[in-house]
């Protein structure tokens, strides 16, 4: 069966050609990827990132933006590698959210 992401040759509408700026969080996701995949760490390979992006359910794949897919795949790869546990990640996410809510 064809995977959802494997859409070569299917109708997809026009390509948006205008330049756009990146949000701060998107630049951070890019930097995370560079740091995690650097030869001295190798905590993530681009092929693992792709596998995790391609494993997204079709509706999530379509709904998420480019860097949303990346950060989701980064988190899943690090969980699979045992770099952190789901519980550690969940607690850290709650901590960061609380920090952002404080004026």
């Amino acid at each position, binding site marked *: 069966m064809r*995977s959802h992401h494997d859409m*070569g040759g299917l109708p997809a509408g026009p390509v948006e050609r205008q330049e756009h700026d990146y949000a701060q969080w998107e630049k951070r996701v890019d930097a995370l990827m560079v740091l995690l995949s650097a030869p001295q760490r190798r905590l993530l390979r681009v092929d693992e990132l792709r*596998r995790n992006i391609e494993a997204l359910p079709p509706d999530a794949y379509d709904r998420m933006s480019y860097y949303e897919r990346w950060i989701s795949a980064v988190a899943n790869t690090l969980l699979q590698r045992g770099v952190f546990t789901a519980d550690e990640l969940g607690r850290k996410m709650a901590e960061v959210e609380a920090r952002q809510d404080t004026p």
Partner: protein
Amino acid sequence: MSEAPQALAARFAPGARVTVRRAAPPGHLRTPWYIRGQTGEVERLCGAFANPEELAYNRPGLPRQPLYRVRFRQRELWPDYGGAAQDTIEIEIYQHWLEPAP
């Protein structure tokens, strides 16, 4: 201490007619769906690389797999292709996805 990782011998020379295997295993595959089952011509051998299907699971992907650039005729891929008959598309495909064309 260990030997340099070996690469598999190249099975195909430039000009060889090859057919892409029809297979759909799970995992990270770099052979597009639309090219599986199609026949083309080896344009060049690009070198040998660790198998990305294995790298995707953080395994070494050795021995390295020869990678070819294969040329296909657009008219043969797309029944409704409206361009020139000589238009081609080139796709890089790992050796384990290729068989000699029948």
